């Protein structure tokens, strides 16, 4: 599977990271095309269930990105998100998901360069982790 390319679901917050991605686009910056963007109002909107749903549907990696702490459009959404995802990431890794599948970042709408760089890092890390093995919902095994 040398030509394998990972599928990565990115939850980007409307006010910062999505703007950052937009700016990266209009600035014609290059970054890998493995990312499928889902626009959310805030990183705090992302429910851990969304992340599991992405894995269950076969995503090889998930990336959640929001405003820098203190810059949230909703004042504190990303600060709640930070606690939520710290615990989620720890529990996922504790129960056997390889490190490198789940990524979080703070990217403002002016940081197009950071967006392109982070996208590259995320894709590289997921490529290193290889095709997802776990949490993928397949056809039921009927005896």
């Amino acid at each position, binding site marked *: 599977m040398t030509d394998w390319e990972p599928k990565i679901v990115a939850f980007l917050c409307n006010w910062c990271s999505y703007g950052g991605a937009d700016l990266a686009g209009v600035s014609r910056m290059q970054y890998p095309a493995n990312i499928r963007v889902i626009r959310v109002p805030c990183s705090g909107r992302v429910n851990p269930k969304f992340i599991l749903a992405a894995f269950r549907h076969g995503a090889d990696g998930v990336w959640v990105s929001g405003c820098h702490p203190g810059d949230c459009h909703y004042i504190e959404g990303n600060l709640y998100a930070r606690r939520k995802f710290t*615990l989620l990431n720890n529990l996922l*890794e504790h*129960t*056997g998901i390889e490190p490198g599948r789940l990524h979080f970042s703070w990217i403002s709408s002016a940081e197009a360069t950071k967006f392109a760089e982070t996208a590259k*890092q995320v894709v590289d890390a997921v490529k290193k982790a290889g095709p997802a093995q776990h949490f993928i919902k397949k056809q039921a095994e009927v005896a």
Partner: protein
Amino acid sequence: MRAYTEKIREAAKRLLSEDRVDVVIGFRKGTVALMNEPFLVKSLDQVDRLYWDGNCGINLANYLPKRPDRVAIVAKGCDSRNIVVHLLENQIKREQLYILGAPCHGMIDRRRILAALDGKEPLQVEEANGTIKLIGRDFEETLERSSCLQDNCAICIHRNPVVYDELLGDLVAEQENVDRYSDVRRVEAMSSEQRWQYFDDLIAPCIRCYACRNACPLCYCPTCFVDESRPQWVGKSIDRTDTRTFHFLRAYHVAGRCTDCGACERACPVGIKVRRFTKKLEKDIKELYGYEVGLSTDERPPLDTYRPGDPEPFFK
């Protein structure tokens, strides 16, 4: 233990006859040995069926959310902490509650006893002086009480109730120098692949009966995520991925709220150690945010608050 039974009946009689409460939530003897069942007393003539011994491991706080009436409840250390969680989450008001605090010596794990009896069926159980006497049809056996405790009780450091209006007995000495996270550390030493396998083996016998969810005082959502169908977060069959998703999300949903009361493990009909999932969260929350669940009504739960300088080791 017998003293508690008398105290509970006396208090129930007093509270009901003085019309201080509408219902008393306690235990009565179960129909089989080692299994007491929750019992809601509303009239004086039922008071004498209230009972207490080491088989009252079910968490009675489960019966509190959204109750409109005035309730007296018997609460062990863990139950009382779950009551605090309910108060924080506005599931019931403190004014509605009259808490009968039961300082606890740990609850008995009937599976351990049944395993020790090797197939013999106990019909009668007596507890005294740190031993448990089991009487069956043609045998009598005595076991050390401390060796038959539930896993979570053996490592419990909050045996005394946190909130109460009345105590049923003297406060007990809390256990010290307990290693609460040896299980977690054992898993942390494994590689990712081993961990996945470890949890796969752990939940392999699961029949998705949701007894762990139903026994949990925290699982009071009007519609549980497993019952939602649009979108369907998790399939309803015993498919391995679905089972894994269920156990993972169930554990995550009690993050920062779980008091490690062990009701889930006790309820599991196939004996899955479901606390292995929640313990990791408990450990993380204590280490990262310095929070222990259910000790105070003044502090918000860890996922309902934040600090500007919270650790963020893997955020880019």
